[in-house]
């Protein structure tokens, strides 16, 4: 096996397996070794499922030998630890579920298994997906492979770090307010959050049910297209799953961008945007223009209210969803409870971390008697205004392009003392969740942070489209990646 096999894309690895260039057992061993070697410095994984992976790889090799199997047969992948995996510990980054072995597979896990993928392990994440820096994980922070003093972003920080360091060609992820796109941007990889309802949420531990959506972190848009085709589709087990045919996302990747109307959100280029990030975004936009796209400025006047609306809606739904963790049927139970209320309160008080408790309490407050109209109902109305702004913009343009985050990766510990500073990391990403829109982040260059060694830190370009426009987003991203090589860059220590 060539020494740079780990740098190949998922599509290339799948092709190499089919061409018998290497076996799944060899590939799986390679990635398991890379994961284990990276753990002390990155902490990107909560569980490494070595034995199951080896067995699955052997089965995949038998399928490959017999020319059976699916699009991903034998390809090693990682799952965010928010997805239930039968017989494997599923913690959601929390002490509450430190002892939880899922009795079933999430639909997404089952679908990727059916496509032939081999699970390497469960990626670290912010506790219950609540965080933007992966610092709220009970299992310790994940570190950014570009500079281990920095955060990888969150909540899918383990997934993004794993793909950036080429510990796996694909990591599944979830996005409630930016949790796929923000870490993808900070780690220099490709993140795709599909339309709300496109990918089943069954077996994905719920945070905010009207916002949560599963997606992918990969090196390239082509890989994301390949995987989305396998992951998407109707699931009767998820009441918000949309019954709508899944297009062949691979078929339209190379469509020319001539005449594509790109909207530049005025609100995305505001005073909070780091000047170096802005320069990289403007360079990418200039390239799109060269490729035949037309740029025009559009405005979403209600977008500045997206973060406050989110911090009412998401905590409200979280306080309801997390009520199921009561120390009775599964999860953490306190020692020697005096009575039933003591059991509930102490199990929850001990099992949840500080940020999760903060959000449960915020949600409890905004839903409590007398406050519902002022907070939750008001936020759902503002959400409607924001969705209407987007709908109006998509009457004029095909996609919106701008930055994914206001700044590149920041230092571990830099924003933990002030929750609002942390929440504002998601200022550019939350709008798509509130409106249920698909969105991507792709790497578009590097910003030189002060004193940072090497070429600097990755910058993410965000592409947002109308509902169910994943094929268009993937096309817009793929054509850019054909012209640039940012998505091929790997941090030196993992090259």
């Amino acid at each position, binding site marked *: 096996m060539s020494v740079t096999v780990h740098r190949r894309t998922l599509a290339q690895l799948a092709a190499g397996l089919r061409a018998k260039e290497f076996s799944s057992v060899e590939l799986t061993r390679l990635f398991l070794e890379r994961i284990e070697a990276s753990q002390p410095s990155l902490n990107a994984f909560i569980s490494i499922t070595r034995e199951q992976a080896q067995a699955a790889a052997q089965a995949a090799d038998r399928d490959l030998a017999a020319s059976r199997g699916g699009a991903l047969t034998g390809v090693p992948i990682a799952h965010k630890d928010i997805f239930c995996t039968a017989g494997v510990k599923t913690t959601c980054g929390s002490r509450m579920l430190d002892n939880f072995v899922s*009795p079933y597979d999430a639909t997404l896990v089952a679908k990727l298994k059916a496509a032939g993928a081999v699970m390497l392990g469960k990626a670290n994440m912010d506790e219950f997906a609540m965080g933007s820096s992966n610092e709220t994980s009970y299992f310790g922070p994940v570190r950014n492979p570009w500079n281990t003093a920095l955060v990888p972003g969150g909540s899918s920080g383990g997934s993004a770090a794993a793909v950036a360091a080429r510990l796996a060609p694909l990591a599944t992820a979830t996005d409630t307010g930016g949790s796929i796109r923000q870490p993808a941007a900070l780690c220099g990889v490709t993140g795709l959050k599909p339309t709300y309802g496109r990918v089943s949420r069954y077996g994905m531990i719920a945070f905010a049910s009207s916002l949560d959506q599963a997606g992918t972190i990969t090196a390239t848009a082509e890989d994301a297209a390949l995987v989305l085709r396998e992951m998407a589709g109707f699931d009767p087990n998820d009441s918000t799953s949309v019954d709508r045919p899944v297009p062949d996302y691979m078929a339209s990747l190379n469509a020319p961008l001539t005449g594509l109307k790109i909207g530049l959100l005025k609100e995305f280029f505001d005073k909070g945007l780091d000047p170096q990030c802005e320069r990289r975004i403007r360079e990418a936009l200039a390239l799109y223009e060269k490729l035949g796209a037309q740029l025009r400025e559009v405005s979403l006047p209600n977008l500045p*209210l997206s973060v406050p609306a989110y*911090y009412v809606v998401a905590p409200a739904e979280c306080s309801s969803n997390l009520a199921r963790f009561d120390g009775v*049927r*599964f*999860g953490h139970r306190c020692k020697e409870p005096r009575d*039933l209320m003591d059991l509930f309160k102490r199990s929850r008080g001990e099992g949840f971390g500080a940020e999760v408790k903060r959000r449960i309490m*915020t949600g409890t407050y905004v839903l409590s008697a007398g406050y519902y109209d002022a907070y939750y109902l*008001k936020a759902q109305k503002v959400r409607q205004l924001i969705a209407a702004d987007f709908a109006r913009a998509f009457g004029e343009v095909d996609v919106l392009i701008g930055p994914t985050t206001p700044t590149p990766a920041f230092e571990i510990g830099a924003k933990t003392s002030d*929750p609002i500073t942390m929440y504002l990391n998601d200022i550019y990403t939350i709008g798509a969740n509130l409106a249920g829109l698909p969105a991507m982040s792709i790497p578009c260059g590097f910003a030189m942070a002060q004193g940072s060694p090497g070429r600097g830190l990755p910058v993410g370009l965000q592409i947002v489209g109308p509902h169910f426009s994943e094929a268009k987003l993937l096309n817009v991203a793929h054509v850019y990646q054909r012209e640039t090589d940012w998505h091929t860059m790997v941090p030196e220590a993992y090259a």
Partner: protein
Amino acid sequence: MALTREQIENIADLACLELQPTEVPVYQTSLSAILDFVGELDRADTASVAPMAHPLPGLSQRLRPDAITEQDHHELYQENAPQVAAGLYLVPKVIE
């Protein structure tokens, strides 16, 4: 908006969370700041706006047919339970 110690204790009680005494002032500060922050929503004129009922326009929650589809997996599920006996989940005595 400054929440009092009693208000935080009341919210924690409603949320079934036991807080350590040292946690209370921390949440007093941060929840007060969050409520001030989300108070910005008041700036939006929503007098004639209907609240969003579903993120996808025109869709609503689907209902499933009222049919029994679940199989009995209680033994498997109870492997995750802190305490079971005779197929039942055990909790401290509720009725004296």
